[in-house]
């Protein structure tokens, strides 16, 4: 993995588990991305409005504002309908993925995340939306 790979990425990571945030942040910043973090949807929404990240990775079950409410808020706010949002969730029961995609998310990665392949997984989640980030 080359460090310059994600130089233009401004990623907002939202999760109520600090460890989950840390581990993703380590991989993303090592690749050159600028990472913002938030512990719940409410904080995440404020950071989104303030810093306009190019990609949002969010947990689904969180206190205050969960991922489902967050995506509704983001889709309604300025620039929010084009920003890719990927759900990172430990809910891996069948049907979860379909529900997430139907809920307006651009992609879904289930926890435990694979750090070795995180960047590739994110890109394959984003599909045609990837080039805009690069």
């Amino acid at each position: 993995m080359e460090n310059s790979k994600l130089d233009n990425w401004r990623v907002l990571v939202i999760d109520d588990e600090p460890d989950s945030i840390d581990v993703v942040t380590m991989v993303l910043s090592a690749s050159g991305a600028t990472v913002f973090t938030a512990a719940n949807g409410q904080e995440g929404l404020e950071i989104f409005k303030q810093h306009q990240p190019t990609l949002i990775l969010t947990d689904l079950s969180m206190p205050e504002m969960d991922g489902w409410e967050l995506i509704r808020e983001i889709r309604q706010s300025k620039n929010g309908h084009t920003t890719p949002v990927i759900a990172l969730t430990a809910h891996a029961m069948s049907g979860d993925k379909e529900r997430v995609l139907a809920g307006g998310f651009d992609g879904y990665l289930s926890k435990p995340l694979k750090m070795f392949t995180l960047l590739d997984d994110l890109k394959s989640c984003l599909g045609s939306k990837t080039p805009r980030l690069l």
Partner: protein
Amino acid sequence: MTSTTTSVPTKAAMKSPVWQIGKVWEWLAEPAKSVTQPVQRRRARLLASLMIIFAPLGPVGYFGSLLAFPIRQPLQDPLFILTMGTSVVLFAAYWLSRTHRHMWGAALALMTISAATLAAGAIVPANMNTLLIYLLVPIMLGSMLLPARATIALIASNIVGILLMPTVVPAIHFAAVIIPLIYTVILSLVAVVSSGVRAQDVRQIEQQSQDLAEAVRQAEIANKLKDQFLANMSHELRTPLNAIIGFTEVMLMGLAGELNPQIERAAQRIHFNSERLLKLIDDVLDIAKIEAGRVEILRRPFKPAELLETAEMSLRPQATKKELKLVTMLDPNLPKQLFGDAKRLEQILENLVTNAMKFTEQGSVTISLQRQSVEEWAIVVNDTGIGIPPHAQETIFEKFRQIDGTSRRAYGGTGLGLAIVRELSLLMDGNVKVKSSLGSGSTFTVTLPLLVPEGTSNVWKTPN
């Protein structure tokens, strides 16, 4: 709780006119929707049915007797007026029986029949003894249609009516009403006792059906809780594993600084073992979901070639590590596209191959997707491993079962892989079989129904 029971008549019975009459009658006697309690609906339906019979009975009987004993001016005959009046009231009771006031309908009908009988006795004192016997009819019906207290009130008013007869009609002597009175009292006792017994039976049946409904509701709640528990469990186990696997991978990627060889090896062991733990969690949850009947098998088009390729890609590293040959074969007779649950098929393949590799020290593991017949295809996994003794060939598909306790320690694994394969095969309307002899490898065959998406070719050349 609705109690409408729909009987399903046979086709022949539906055509028969008798059934049609039953249908019409049922419609005529159908209680109001607002009447929901089974007992009340039964009573309302009975009242409606009785009124359909009783209301026209008086006029029909009266006109029938006119044929036998012609009277010049029926309009001046008090019996005619009494009969017609009763009939009108009984039709009104019928109408009430179809509303939520059906109980008033019953009271009205029975009071009217009683009063009309007493009045007829007063009009024709000569026939009074015979007429008063008819008082037994409303008393019997009261025990079926009315609550116990109303029935007793009806009986009391009838007895009072009988006792008043000699006072109101001078032509009647008190001694004349003694016989009807005794009949009335005896039958009333019978009616009250029998209705009390019946009410108790009904209460018991109702209590039982309530208990049953409650048990069903509890079972549904328990099932929902179990689902919820499974989902939570999956979530709660994955969250810490995400951190363990994540940080270990971060270390192995060198993102937490250079690792000396010992630490790197330790990190690799942590990684290997946490992957194993993850696999175990997935398997346990899978079995639990299958047992709870919560696994849905999708029917979507998929390409067998892709299934084989995906499986090979994910299994290749394991094979390389054990220096085993991994061979794949795709039967050209297999349609390019099939219907099925590709993810679950992949899981079957993965479990079978992982199992095969576990018990194979050297040689090869072969995966082939084959056409078995016009209607069936199969996933066949063949290895050159230690084989399975005949006595174990059935039990290996049971949960937590391996050939013996020592093999678990020697070969590892959860003992759930083959159980999942069997359960999934059964869910897909297929089956799994094993052929093996000690020392010369094993062949697992999962046979599945061949479903082809519409519009795709399904040509099969019979093998030579």
